[in-house]
């Protein structure tokens, strides 16, 4: 078995003084210019101001010398969907290149006083805003979507007024978890630590609850460790120092859970991707490799360790037909087919794939006025396919994809775990 199959088989080092970025020039060794990455870039397809991942990644890096600090400013147009990373037939560490270049750009070329910088920080630190909002969820939901406030946001911060801020849950998942007295199943042999991410906690606790019900039904003991943001929105905004702070907390608590015999599961595919891929690529924190090696997508974990087909034998649900969109970040982990395969085994629900396009929102990307139109144009194909599909309820694993699906079609959006819950867990 050759090591060449392992992504990024070189360990980059810090070459460029004055930044905390690593030298990724050796990564250009893997590029043979086939341009597969470019054909996968949803932004380059709708916006020719964006030169595409081949230029942004291996070409820009290869042209760099030690004293060169000018990153082309088009790096901020990259939505960090990572489709290029997954498509590259040659192991070029594209996401690492983009994330590092973006971070260097923000560090060296972006004014810390600019509205753009401040807005990006607010957006990428969603957890903080969500936490504040969760103290007064109903008020927050109202205020955030209140016309005059939105006008101020658009004019002052460049947050498009077309977007609806997500509703804040009246009870967060963690509050609910505490209220129910934590884990209801004890099982030292089947233990998982749930990385719920910010969104399931503050906005869609029903997804987190579905996970808890499904896993407990299958006999798992669930731990819910202290945790912060996975860092996904921060990588995408070049805020690596913020992301590192959060990562340190996460790694510390998740490592402790691993020592207690738990594997880590996530219901949000961007969170699992961050823990699995971006953490070891971007940070050198004690235990980070361990965390990466023990993290799974919640559905994937059950497919590997449980006989779901047998479990679902004869299961019948009363569920609306679904239009399913596989998020880029699930695709990046090789999980794009699993939700549909699962639902094939459940009677009473149909799910239809709405194609392999990107939803276009890419986390905070579509939340910026200057990217809103591009974001909607990228999403156009998905919206059309959703309209085409039989079902008029959407399904996806990614919270921001869900926002975009809802925004573009008005559909209600479900998570596959909710379908699984309906099939496996008897009504209480």
């Amino acid at each position, binding site marked *: 078995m050759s090591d060449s199959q392992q992504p990024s*088989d*070189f360990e980059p*080092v*810090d*070459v460029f003084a004055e930044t905390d970025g690593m*030298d990724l*020039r*050796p990564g*250009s*060794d*893997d*590029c*043979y*210019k*086939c341009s597969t990455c470019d054909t996968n870039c949803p932004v380059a397809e709708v916006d020719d101001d964006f*030169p595409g991942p*081949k*230029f942004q990644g291996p*070409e*820009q890096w*290869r*042209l*760099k*010398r*030690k004293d*060169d600090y*000018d*990153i*082309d*400013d*088009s790096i901020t147009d990259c939505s960090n969907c990572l489709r290029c990373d997954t498509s590259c037939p*040659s192991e070029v560490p594209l996401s690492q290149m983009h994330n590092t270049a973006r971070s260097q750009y923000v560090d060296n070329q972006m004014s810390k006083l600019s509205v753009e910088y401040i807005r990006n920080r607010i957006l990428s630190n969603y957890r903080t805003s969500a936490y504040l909002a969760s103290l007064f969820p109903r008020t927050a939901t109202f205020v955030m979507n209140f016309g005059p406030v939105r006008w101020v946001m658009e004019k002052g911060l460049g947050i498009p007024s077309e977007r609806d801020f997500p509703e804040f849950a009246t009870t967060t998942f963690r509050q609910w978890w505490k209220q129910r007295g934590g884990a209801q199943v004890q099982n030292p042999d089947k233990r998982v630590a749930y990385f719920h991410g910010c969104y399931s906690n503050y906005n869609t606790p029903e997804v987190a609850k579905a996970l808890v019900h499904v896993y407990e039904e299958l006999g798992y003991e669930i731990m819910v460790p202290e945790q912060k943001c996975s860092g996904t929105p921060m990588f995408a905004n070049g805020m690596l120092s913020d992301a590192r702070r959060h990562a340190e907390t996460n790694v510390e608590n998740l490592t402790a859970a691993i020592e207690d015999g738990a594997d880590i599961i996530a219901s949000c595919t961007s969170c699992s991707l961050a823990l699995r891929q971006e953490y070891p690529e971007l940070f050198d924190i004690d235990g980070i490799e361990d965390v990466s090696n023990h993290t799974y997508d919640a559905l994937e974990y059950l497919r590997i360790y449980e006989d779901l087909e047998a479990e679902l034998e004869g299961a019948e649900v009363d569920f609306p037909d679904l*239009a399913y969109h596989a998020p880029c970040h699930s695709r990046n982990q090789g999980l794009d087919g699993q939700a549909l395969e699962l639902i094939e085994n459940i009677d009473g629900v149909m799910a*239809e*794939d*709405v*194609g392999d396009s990107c939803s276009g929102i890419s986390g905070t990307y579509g939340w910026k006025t200057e990217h809103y139109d591009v974001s909607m144009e990228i999403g156009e*194909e998905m919206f*059309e*396919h959703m309209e*085409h*599909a039989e079902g008029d309820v959407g399904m996806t694993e990614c919270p921001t994809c869900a926002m975009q699906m809802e925004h573009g079609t008005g559909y209600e959006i479900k998570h596959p775990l909710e379908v699984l819950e309906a099939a496996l867990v008897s009504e209480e």
Partner: protein
Amino acid sequence: MESSTGVLVIGGGSTGTGIARDLAMRGVDVTLVEKGNLTHGTTGRMHGLLHSGGRYAVSDQESAKECIIENRVLRDIASHCVEMTGGLFVQRPQDSDEYFQKKLEGCRECDIPAEVLSPEEAREVEPYLAEDIERAIKVPDGAIDPFRLCVANAVSTENHGGRIETHAPVTDVLLEDGEVVGVEVTHESGPGKRVHGKEGQKEKIYADHVVNAAGAWTGRIGDMAGVDIEVRPSKGVMTVMNARQVDTVINRCKPKGDADIIVPHETAAILGTTDEEVEDPEDYAEEQWEVDLMIEELKELVPILDESRTLRSFWGVRPLYEPPDTGTEDATDITRQFFLLDHEDRDDLTGMTTIVGGKFTTYRMMAEQLSDHVCERLGIDAECRTAEVPLPGSENTEVLDDAMDRFGLRSPIARRSKQRLGSRAEEVLDVDGPNPVVCQCEGVTRAELEDAIDQSGTDLNAVRLRTRASMGNCQGGFCSRAMADLLHPEYEEAIAREAYDELFQERWKGERHALWGEQLSQAMLNYALHATTLNADADPARLGQDVDFAAFDGGEFDSVERTERGADAVATDGGHDGN
């Protein structure tokens, strides 16, 4: 065809172009003839090191002192050809302390700034250095682009009224009454521009004095003139890495040996070298052991080299010379000094001077001494100005930064273009209409290529040397054909096709030496693109093959029906509906 000139210089390498520029600036009427491209010989096949002199600080202090002086001059007059990377002499555990000390003292004795770095400090400068190094000496080595430098010297020569004639090999030295009166060249092209496939014509160029600066070929010119010049050519391999593993010149701090230097050059890093005497400077073995040795030895200094991608290897031949009867056994011991052979004194042959040996870094000083000598012979009283007047492209590059924004280039491409073009960037890049990047590996735009074609005609290898197009990781796989397309319509398509074949083959010649891992994958992709997708290997137009078109599938409809069908065709598909 006949012409006459004041001084005729044979050889378009650094020495020849340096001499031509020097004499032209002194007001001498100069013609330079070169058998191939500029830098066709040794100059085009070196690792691009601008010596600080550190390398010779122990073995040859004379040379070391010359190097540091010229190093400072070139930084000044050729700024667009030089990257001041700095250099390190790195000591490994098995390398002697005594030699390290000698090297340090030697540098100081020769006025070469030298500073000792601890292993930590050295690794801070170059993080990819091996962890077990002992220490290093920091010296002002640099990287220099020999192509750009020679082109700049040639342009300067022309600006001062000189004539540069490439692809014009000397086929005879003209003698009258025991005196050299000129040379005969055979043109492989029309005047000044190369056009393939034109039958060459001979030209007799009469001159008051002939300068033989043909490097490894000086002996052949000598033969034509009936004098004996004993050049001892010695080959050395240079292995080109795809990326810069280091941004500083890395030298192994030990007495001379094979594979002891890494030079960061433009986007790449060049490993060197070997030192093997050869019989014939144009025909010698390029061997696997040499390439493997570069990687095996130099990974001791920079371990990542072991798994890094190699683009190609090339060989150069040093035109070493030693006076008759010196009789050095081992080529590695032959002096690197240059020699000025006045054939009047030496062989009773007036009208010709030969310059041989020496080093690229000191080319200007050599040219100055030779020009002084020639001027003395011809009774010309003029001062050398080459150390003060910047070369074309190196004047006032500071004002450029603001202008670059106007050309709509992505920043790394603008930066690289400027680094290559120097002060000419604005005039070259300021074009109407689109200016797409043609060579994406090196970031070369169409405007820069068209400018190079204006200078060098249909010889795409000359265009490559000027621009670096096709010198990146795909080795011309993706751009060689597009480069050739630029020759059209000024030149007919068949000529463009031939130019593409020639460039593609030249790229292949070096790439063969790197065929494993990523580069073998690249080679197969290139082969597939050019043979499968373009059918360049079996193209009937190339093979002069008659094709019976009627024997093949003529389609389901004739074109008239097709037109109607096309107009009536209805699009059926609203895209993938997920089922």
